[in-house]
């Protein structure tokens, strides 16, 4: 899933300053799971912004709040047409994809990001998320024992560890596991160390040209039948 962190309150206050009526819009999918922008965080932020306004004595915002199932699907945004008719800005607690979907769906309303979208990852333990996928468009996990060196090695290198690994940790961060040591150990366990002995050529950074687009094979099929 996509993992994000809510922006600092002061940054959000500066961002919304020019707008009077602000809709705080949560997202019911990834942002809810990573505690950055679900219904609960929308409500907390709403209270925090109101309180900050009262305390500081400046600002005359009126806030409303709502959470859609998924901000990144235009069909869910269709459901809030009535709620955005009288707002001056939408403060989205969705990821960057959600903010852009709002901008696309409501071309006359400023869309503001309330979170910093961080990475695609998984929950390690309660309240801790780790990055797991860089969406490189050319998955090699079969060769690296299901551990991604592009994402989990700070250098993203493909032919084994650098010399900076110590105690199984990364030279960039002593708390972070060296991905290549993890890969080695798991390949050894699986009896597949020959995969590490292979040469891997440089990455193709245009495996999918940026900005990336995927057209579903199924829709192509339908199109062809129609033609």
């Amino acid at each position, binding site marked *: 899933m996509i993992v994000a962190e809510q922006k600092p309150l002061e940054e959000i206050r500066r961002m919304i300053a020019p707008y009077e009526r602000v809709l705080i819009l949560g997202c019911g999918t990834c942002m809810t799971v990573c505690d950055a922008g679900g219904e609960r965080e929308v409500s907390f932020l709403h209270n925090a912004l109101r309180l900050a306004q009262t305390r500081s004595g400046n600002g005359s915002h009126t806030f409303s709040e709502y959470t859609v199932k998924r901000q990144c699907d235009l069909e869910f945004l269709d459901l809030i047409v009535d709620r955005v008719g009288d707002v001056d800005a939408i403060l989205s607690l969705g990821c960057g994809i959600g903010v852009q979907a709002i901008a696309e769906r409501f071309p006359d309303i400023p869309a503001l990001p309330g979170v910093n979208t961080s990475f695609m990852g998984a929950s390690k333990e309660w309240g801790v998320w780790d990055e797991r996928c860089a969406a490189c468009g050319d998955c090699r996990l079969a060769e690296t024992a299901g551990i991604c060196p592009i994402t989990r090695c700070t250098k993203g290198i493909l*032919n084994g560890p650098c*010399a900076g*690994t*110590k105690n199984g940790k990364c*030279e960039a961060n002593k708390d972070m596991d060296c991905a*290549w040591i993890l890969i080695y150990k798991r390949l050894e366990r699986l009896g597949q160390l020959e995969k590490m002995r292979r040469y891997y050529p*440089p990455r193709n950074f245009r495996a999918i040209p940026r900005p990336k687009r995927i057209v579903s094979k199924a829709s192509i099929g339908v199109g062809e039948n129609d033609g």
Partner: protein
Amino acid sequence: MANSLFEEKLYSNEFLVTTEIGPPKGVDTSEMVHHIDLLKDKVDAINVTDNQSSVMRFPSLGGCLLVKERGGEPIFQVTCRDRNRLAIQADLLLAYSRGIRNVLCLTGDSIDVGDHKEAKPVFDLDSVQLLRMIKTMESGKDMGSNELKGAPQFCLGASVHPEADFIEPQLIKFEKKVAAGAQFFQTQGIFDLGSLRRFMQYASQFNVKILAGIIVLASARMAQYMNNNVPGIIVSQATIDELSTAEKGKGLQKGIEIAVRLIKTIREENLCHGVHIMAVGNEKIVPDILEVAQPVGMHP
């Protein structure tokens, strides 16, 4: 025919001595030039580091040009951290055209250990891919399979870490570097000759030259600092203990003593093909080390 003076020596069975200099942060190259003049006739080649420890400096290529100008034999250190495949290939073309023929291929330290922590880490290539890319260039093609108007020919080196605390994956990578065309290896700092012996027992099956990395430490504190902060360095506790026996202000002297002892033993026991002396900021003491390390029969 050898591609460089250094390559010629590489296959002469002489005991090889290389050293390295770190370029300055700024345009005042006088101290670097002084070090080049001091070292150029006493060693077989001088490495010039490439934004070492991810600290921005005068470039490796510029330093190599200065070594050439002063009549020395440079080894161009190339890391993959700051330049993509276009930039590295272009730099290699320039290097070749100006007589720089020895290249040490490195992945490069992480951006996080340096002084520009917010910079974009490039790592378009890794050290193995860099070696292969240069072999491709030597065959007359660039990495996009386009014809080169004049192909360069280099003498290629790489690094290896015989004292890594988990050696097996390092050895796999070493073999990939050998297969990719590395002719010589300058090791990370060696402090425990036992690990060098073990490594050489294994490495002698490959047709490559191994130069043991000798780091000249100036104090026990410096050793501890390097252990904690410099990637790829594991100073043994025995070395740290020995350094801490030095009287105040005599740390560097003790460090030199240790370096000389290592070099002498390596030479006498014929442990590997040469040494690579890294004086980390104390380049001026390298001639003294070589002087004292005689009679090693390096350069009488």
